[in-house]
């Protein structure tokens, strides 16, 4: 009983903490999440804790219903991002990768080369790097060299054997993503999938502002948006609908699909305000 009370207090206290955060800190927090498409569970676990009354469907979408009656509407944001999973482990302890989620830019895979990644193993995050040829040994690029792709990627986590990697909790299908370091510059923020994550931050901020609701409103943080057919969003529609109207929170971005994907802080604030108004019935 004592523990149960403590748990209740914790769940009440965290939303208050979350609500007290500025939109900027909330945005940076969301930008710090790694959400490889189809492997969003760690983030959705956090959202369940942070949003009392929220539920998770069998696919993993997080939804909360506000208000009652009609019209019944849906506002959502996709949580996921393109990333990788471990496709294999070599006898020397290097990890090979399989890409997961649609991408718009060939630069996305090039960015793996020579950069730090995080492997989400069974025992927790494992830091690593993706190998690149030593510039001293190659003496420059070959003209018209083929771009670096995921097939060239060997993740070095410091292991010397497949057994070493296994001992760190790294397994087949462990999610892998570029190590995140949300980066504020000027009046903007840069991060991988900054647009998607900042849009979700704006939606969370709108939700936490206790908006006036016209009719009933389903607020969903959806998974697997980068899979064919957007199964996460369609699952919400199938399970919670039909809806009289739907809105997906999105933001304009610069430098899409790079570590420097950029959103303007003013755009995030404007989106939050627009979402609050839309929840209140504005078109």
């Amino acid at each position, binding site marked *: 009983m004592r523990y149960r009370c403590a748990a209740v207090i914790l769940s009440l206290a965290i939303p208050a903490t979350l609500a007290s955060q500025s939109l900027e800190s909330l945005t940076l927090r969301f930008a710090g999440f790694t959400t490889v498409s189809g492997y969003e569970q760690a983030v959705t676990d956090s959202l369940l804790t942070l949003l009392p009354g929220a539920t998770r469907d069998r696919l993993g979408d997080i939804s909360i219903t506000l208000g009652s009656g009609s019209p019944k509407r849906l506002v959502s944001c996709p949580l996921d991002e393109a990333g990788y999973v471990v496709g294999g482990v070599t006898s020397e302890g290097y990890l090979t990768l399989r890409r997961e989620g649609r991408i718009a*830019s060939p630069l996305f895979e090039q*960015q793996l*080369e020579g950069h730090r990644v995080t492997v989400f193993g069974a025992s927790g995050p494992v830091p690593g790097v993706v190998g690149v*040829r030593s510039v001293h040994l190659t003496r420059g690029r070959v003209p018209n*060299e083929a771009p670096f792709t995921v097939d060239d990627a060997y993740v070095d986590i410091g*292991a010397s054997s497949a057994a070493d990697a296994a001992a760190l909790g790294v397994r087949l299908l462990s999610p892998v993503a570029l190590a995140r370091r949300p980066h504020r510059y000027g009046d903007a923020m840069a991060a991988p999938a900054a647009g998607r994550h900042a849009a979700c931050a704006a939606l969370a901020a709108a939700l936490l502002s206790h908006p006036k609701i016209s009719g009933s409103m389903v607020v969903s943080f959806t998974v697997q948006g980068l899979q064919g057919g957007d199964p996460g969003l369609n699952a919400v529609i199938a399970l919670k609908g039909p809806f009289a109207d739907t809105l997906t929170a999105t933001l304009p971005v610069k430098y899409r699909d790079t570590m*420097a994907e950029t959103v303007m802080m003013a755009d995030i604030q404007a989106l939050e305000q627009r979402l609050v108004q839309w929840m209140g019935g504005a078109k």
Partner: protein
Amino acid sequence: MKIFLTVTLVCAASAAQAQSTVAEADSVLARLIPTYGVSGGEAPVREVVKSLLPSWAKPETDTAGNLWLRVGSGGAPVVYVAHMDEIGFQVTAINPDGSLELDRTGGFFESLFEGMPALVHTPRGDIPGVFPPRDSLPRDPRELRHQPPVVRVDGDPNHSTLRVDVGTTTRAATEALGVTVGSTVTMPKSYQKLAGTRATGRSFDDRVGDASLILAVRHLDRAKLTHEVIFLWSTREETGLFGARAAARSLGTAPARVYAIDTFVSSDAPLDPKSFADQPLGQGPVVRALDNSSVTPPALVDSVLAIASARHIPIQVGTTNGGNDGSMFVPFGVPDVAMGWPLRYSHSPAEVIDLKDVAALANIVQATAEVW
């Protein structure tokens, strides 16, 4: 003569000394790696090096920016040199839209910076920005976004195909941030332990060399020295060995030997050819007997191996590519004994080392200083 010298060295080296450890190497690198110091802008690194030296050490800075520590007295000095600078960029112009034109400082694959966060280093502090991907810039359309940049757009070999966006839209706004022509540019970096004794970071080349000198100084038995030992943390190695050049000129023919302590670029990596440089990580420092700038006389290689054996320090011998600061001393008749540690993924943000090699490198620096 050679046998006599080797026996003498072995006897002198046999006495056990307090030696550097992996934990100590880890703590020193954790201070050095997050410090920025593009060639010509090494001052922050120099201050960290000073702060990590023992209190008895009284280093001095010369007009080239090199940091000198002289220990002991007697016969001809021996010099240990490691460079403080790292690769990066320098601002060459501020465009009307507020973005920055760049020159490369040192040799590296520019694609590793494309689409990444950036830091512009100014006297007022670090200004954050990003390196926009090239297809967002008004550049030569033949440069496909996803191709590594190899095209020199204007014939200047150092001109970068990248720019930096600091979030401004006018030249005046960028200047108001304190950015000027000549400001240096890098990307954010940090020191990160990997599994076991491995670690990753950017600028291990040559902060590991800096660290090994610091550790050797800390453990050095000064009472054993029979000649002057000069520990030198040098500047502008990546752009032409300029700091070492100035030091070599000032010392002239006086030194008995110079030990260049710099990266051994290893092919112990999945993408590199194995035809040479295949000295693996974790099996000890490497006597860099032959590179693109110098050849170590074989007798001197043998002497290092003998000292390492006497002190039970693991060591390897190898050949790799690249130059080293010691080569600036050779024209004065000073033999260059280059030593390093195996490094994967050189000049990239993902350089990987084994801390066991760093501790052992510090120990061989200490041992050679004390007995040779």
